[in-house]
């Protein structure tokens, strides 16, 4: 309940309501893009500074391993479910599956804010896990698509070009680069830039989620290829993946905050790096489809239901 009264979430709801009511409220794209870059830089720096303080621990390694395992296995399972229950062809199933194996930076960031304000701040190294989980699912999704597709361009983009595109995607580079800068400058060096990258963080996030609310609701309204079955999967995937994340996190002995963060990463679906890669690698896949599922179904689910739910479950399981 408390989570829903967080200003960050309320702005998301405001945006969604405005879009449903067909208001012409709109954030200029340059501003959204700018805030999006700001959030990546800020989250990267923060994570790096925390890791610089705590050093490389076994927890970090275990969390990284867990993240990698999730991002390799989720797309495989998701692919077959999308093919079977979802009734998608291999190309679209591969494209959608890749989104669920990867992660959404803003979902993570929102979760982190909510957790921090409940005194359950996740460990800094979870940012490294976030960065690690961004790309492997792309490769898995493409592999599934090309393996099961009987024709089409799946595979026409040279794998070298694709690897380049994926690993050097602007958001991946900025997040990773800021993380490394954070490690290099440490807490002291951060002090002078903290007013922008830390103090201003929550306010900027409000603005960004306002925009996400607008975008998610508009997508939902205009989505054409979204069947009821796919909407259902867009809700079940985060639920199941999130719970698997909770179990895995507790199993490897992470603290409560970091376990919830891992669950959020598992539950979230990419809407930046993966769509860009899929548009290039699988141009015949329906971009309206994967963006709608990721942005208009799974993202709101995680923001409004997923984050508090995974927190509840983890607290309850860790306590028992």
């Amino acid at each position, binding site marked *: 309940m408390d989570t829903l009264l967080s200003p960050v979430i309320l702005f998301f709801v405001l945006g969604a309501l405005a879009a449903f009511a067909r208001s012409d409220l709109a954030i200029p794209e340059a501003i959204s893009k700018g805030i999006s870059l700001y959030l990546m830089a800020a989250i990267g720096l923060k994570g790096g500074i925390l890791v610089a303080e705590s050093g490389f621990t076994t927890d970090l390694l275990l969390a990284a391993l867990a993240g990698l395992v999730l991002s390799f296995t989720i797309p495989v399972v998701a692919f077959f479910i999308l093919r079977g229950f979802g009734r998608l062809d291999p190309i679209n199933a591969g494209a959608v599956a890749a989104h669920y194996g990867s992660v959404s930076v803003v979902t993570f960031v929102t979760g982190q804010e909510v957790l921090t304000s409940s005194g359950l701040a996740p460990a800094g190294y979870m940012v490294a896990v976030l960065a690690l989980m961004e790309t492997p699912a792309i490769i898995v999704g493409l592999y599934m698509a090309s393996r099961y597709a009987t024709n089409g361009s799946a595979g026409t983009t040279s794998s070298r070009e694709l690897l380049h595109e994926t690993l050097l995607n602007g958001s991946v580079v900025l997040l990773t680069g800021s993380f490394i800068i954070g490690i290099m400058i440490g807490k002291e060096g951060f002090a002078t830039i903290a007013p922008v990258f830390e103090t201003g963080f929550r306010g900027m996030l409000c603005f960004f989620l306002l925009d996400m609310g607008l*975008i998610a609701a508009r997508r939902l309204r205009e989505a054409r290829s979204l069947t009821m079955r796919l909407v259902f999967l867009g809700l079940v995937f985060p639920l199941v993946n999130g719970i698997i994340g909770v179990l895995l996190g507790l199993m490897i002995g992470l603290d409560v905050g970091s376990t919830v963060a891992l669950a959020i990463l598992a539950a979230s679906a990419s809407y930046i790096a993966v769509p860009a890669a899929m*548009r290039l690698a699988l141009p015949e896949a329906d971009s309206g489809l994967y963006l709608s599922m990721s942005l208009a179904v799974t993202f709101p689910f995680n923001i409004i239901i997923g984050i508090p739910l995974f927190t509840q479950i983890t607290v309850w399981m860790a306590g028992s």
Partner: protein
Amino acid sequence: MKRLTSRKRIEVLVDAPLLKRVKTMAEEAGIIGYTVIPTLEGKGAQGEWRDERVSGGVGSKVIFLTIVSEERATAFLDQLEPILDCV
């Protein structure tokens, strides 16, 4: 106005992430010059879209404009043909 020669003007509306590919195709068709123009929104058989740069440029479209000789235009269009539906 004696310096004017006959040229084809080709405009390709392309998803931002696929622009790179169209450039490569133009290059392969021997086209050196082009200009890219922004767009704001649009509608077609596949529904409506509007520029929202958050999703990695997917859903944003740009116009690839090139003015070329008839011969190069044909070569370029032949190259484009297989992906015309998805562009």
